[in-house]
């Protein structure tokens, strides 16, 4: 056993101070969590927050409270944004790594969405049969709507990985590149005479000719500069294809800056660094529209699309009527030309025939990587609205239902849902069967 070593008083007190400081270091995060002494910039990106756990003897005894509290405290602890930014900054600065969910850091710090990169390489290819079916149904819907005086257009928004494939990291550049959903849809939609605006093809051209980059370094979406080019092109397309006469646009307030705006650094932000990578020098301008002239009118538009569609929403009210709507991911009504939102926002609860009646234009806009789900069931649901099930269809649905009822994993999942949502189990199987049938119809 070692003998106790005494130290001179001053040294001892200095060491005690050091130890106290280290203890304070351990205490500070909990104090900050409670009192928020320092204001910190919140972290960017979307993640499910852990709920505050319910404390009760039951939850403690069945051991569900403890891990839930662990998780909750981890998210609430003070200085968490700093700690996470420190880790991310180290990974980025030392190893050129990004730690956001499914992002890829390419050459010259060009950032990509990992899902889009996989999609470009054809890793999520859904198969020719499914694509043929979707294209056939979309064309059918296009023809049906045309007979009611509605122009339906499919717009493929560009994928950054496709346009800047040469700037992806080596492991992606050297990976096998097979047929992608984009390639197949672009080819088959055009061949089926679907009203198609293939922005990807345009962007590949613009990349070489445009004065500014068509995608920002730190953004997942088209650059604001290229977005405006796309809006101008899209409105021209609608004007010509639908024989509409609506206001023209012109550019004002042009500024050149290397401070990214709006979505031009949405990927960079989600890296959650102390210092974002330097952005490309970009032109930022405003599109203005000429006032409505005699003989002009604002068409009634339904826009259905993913986050790229948000880029054009800002301009819609200048060109389209107040009855116009935006269905985000064909799931929720998230914009209305009249301002405010309808009471029923869930798209699956809307009567499609009523919603489409009186529309002049329906734009369906999805970006390349989202083509795995094609148009998120939009054309299928409209097709169903105009072509109700036949007796043969119902028979097939019942057949599928019987098959699904043999699936034990599905049964247990649906039993749980039936109990939770108070819906008869047989109804849930019916819904599942209808969903499966609609996919192959």
């Amino acid at each position: 056993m070692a003998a106790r070593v005494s130290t001179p008083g001053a040294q001892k007190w200095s060491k005690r101070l050091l130890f106290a400081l280290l203890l304070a270091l351990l205490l500070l995060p909990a104090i900050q969590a409670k009192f928020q002494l320092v204001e910190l910039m919140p972290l960017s990106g979307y993640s499910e927050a852990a709920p505050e756990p319910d404390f009760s003897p039951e939850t403690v005894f069945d051991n569900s409270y403890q891990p839930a509290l662990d998780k909750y405290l981890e998210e609430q602890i003070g200085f968490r944004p700093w700690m996470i930014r420190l880790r991310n900054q180290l990974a980025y600065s030392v190893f050129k790594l990004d730690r956001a969910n499914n992002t890829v850091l390419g050459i010259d710090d060009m950032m990509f969405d990992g899902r889009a990169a996989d999609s470009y390489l054809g890793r999520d290819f859904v198969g020719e049969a499914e694509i043929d079916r979707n294209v056939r149904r979309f064309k059918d819907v296009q023809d049906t709507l045309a007979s009611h005086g509605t122009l339906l257009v499919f717009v493929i928004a560009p994928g950054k990985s496709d346009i800047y494939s040469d700037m992806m990291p080596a492991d992606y550049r050297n990976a096998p590149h097979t047929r992608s959903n984009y390639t197949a849809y672009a080819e088959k939609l055009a061949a089926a005479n679907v009203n198609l605006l293939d922005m990807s093809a345009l962007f590949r051209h613009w990349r070489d000719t445009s004065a500014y980059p068509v995608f920002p370094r730190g953004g997942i979406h088209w650059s604001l500069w290229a977005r405006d080019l796309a809006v101008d092109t899209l409105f021209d397309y609608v004007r010509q294809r639908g024989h509409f006469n609506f206001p023209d646009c012109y550019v004002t307030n042009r500024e050149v800056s290397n401070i990214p705006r709006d979505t031009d650094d949405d990927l960079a932000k989600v890296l959650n660094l102390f210092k974002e990578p330097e952005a490309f020098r970009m032109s930022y301008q405003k599109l203005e529209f000429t006032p409505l002239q005699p003989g002009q009118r604002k068409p009634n538009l339904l826009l259905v699309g993913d986050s790229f569609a948000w880029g054009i929403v800002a301009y819609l009210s200048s060109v389209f009527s107040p009855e116009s709507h935006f269905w985000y991911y064909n799931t929720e009504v998230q914009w209305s030309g009249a301002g405010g939102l309808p009471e029923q926002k869930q798209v699956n609860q809307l009567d499609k025939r009523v919603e489409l009646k009186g529309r002049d234009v329906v734009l369906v806009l999805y970006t390349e990587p989202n083509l795995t789900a094609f148009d998120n069931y939009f054309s299928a649901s409209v097709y169903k609205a105009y072509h109700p099930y036949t007796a043969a269809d119902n028979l097939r649905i019942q057949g599928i239902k019987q098959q699904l009822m043999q699936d034990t994993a599905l049964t247990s999942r649906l039993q749980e849902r039936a109990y939770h949502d108070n819906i008869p189990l047989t109804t849930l199987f019916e819904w599942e069967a209808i969903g499966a049938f609609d996919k192959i119809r």
Partner: protein
Amino acid sequence: MVFSSTLFLFYFLPSFLLLYYAVPARLKNAVALLASLGFYAWGGLHFLGLFLASVVVNFVLIRYMDATSQRSRKRVFLLLSIVLNVGMLFYFKYANFFLDNASAVRSYLGGPALTWEKVVLPIGISFFTFEKLTYTIDVYRGVNKPLKSFWDFLLYIMLFPKMIAGPIVRFHEIAGQLTDRSAFDTVDQKLAGLFRFGIGLAKKVLIANVLGEQADLIFKMNPATLSAPLAWLGAVAYTFQIYFDFSGYSDMAIGLGRMMGFQFPENFNNPYISRSITEFWQRWHITLGRWMRDYLYIPLGGNRVKPSRLYVNLWTVFILSGFWHGAAWNFIAWGAFHGLFLVLDRLFLLRLSRRLGSFSIVPTFLITVVGWVLFRSETLGGALAYAGRMFAGGTSSLPYFTPEFWTTLTLASGFAFLAALPTVERRALRVLAAEHLTLPRALALSITTAVLLILSVSYVLSSSFNPFIYFRF
């Protein structure tokens, strides 16, 4: 509760330390015991009653054993205590294993498979059972008198820093400290303890977890799809992961102990610079090795038996050691694998390694790498298939791994092998075992501790934060 969790680092540990330092010496054991009970109950509330009951029974049995003067009666109490402790371990840890195997044999013979409710393993049972046994046997052997206070005994078993994953502290190593720790109650010990804790946390979080992520990916792959270089890379990554993980946990336990005035035994001593498997077991999980030697190998006859018996004993001890690590055939195979090399050491390998000098570090390391494949795989069949790929030959190029992984692997190798240089080993020992710190050294240690803590915490907190760019339906 895990040492690297937010709850432990920022709530439990600082609150406990503040209270522990604030109370007078006579109340420190009570504070430590309450904290340990809370620590255990956090993850094992179900088992707390059973666990406490077993400690009470063990304590009473040993009191009776000590009170009696008859050797035969002492032996009865000894056996009762051993049966109680080993019986509990056997039931909780091995019942599923034996029933699984019995069921498999029954199915093989055409009978229906057995069904039973799976037995849940109480946290830390392997470690605290061994500690209870050392108390029993040390008192029986007369090495120590039994503790007068039940609470001190409970504290010995439950002391939270070492309860879940060791080091296995033999009773006689800590008996005196349970009642008087004033000799180690210095600010130097506390600073050094916190430094050691920081080192351990960094080893686990900055090295083991980073390597573990990739090792997990490789071990999850179908062995048939693995190229030889990839299989070796996975095995080597796991080799360093398990070392930095386990030794990091031991460092944290030792450091926490020092902050409380306890001196726990060392558990690791640069095992990958060993020149033979015999030496490896003197450097790897040292407290388990000592336990096995003192309470199993020596009672079996130790070295004082004829060679053939000695080899059988060695092998038996290592097979049991493997079985102690996990109730599965691959752990038994891992124990047998190491036992085999210990026997071969005695037969001829030690002579060969002496001739090779420091070069024998390489083959010894490779043997341990292969051994870890048995340890890491989910099944014995999986382990053999994986090992088969390692020796299948071929030079296909490796898939992409991040520069962070390669840098961490290089650092881990550096830290693990640098101690082969005697000056480095001596210096590391001086830093870790220092009992008196000059002010500049205390300052350097404190700064290093702060940096390691901040870095480790940043890794811990960011590991569960992977945001999506946007909410998608």
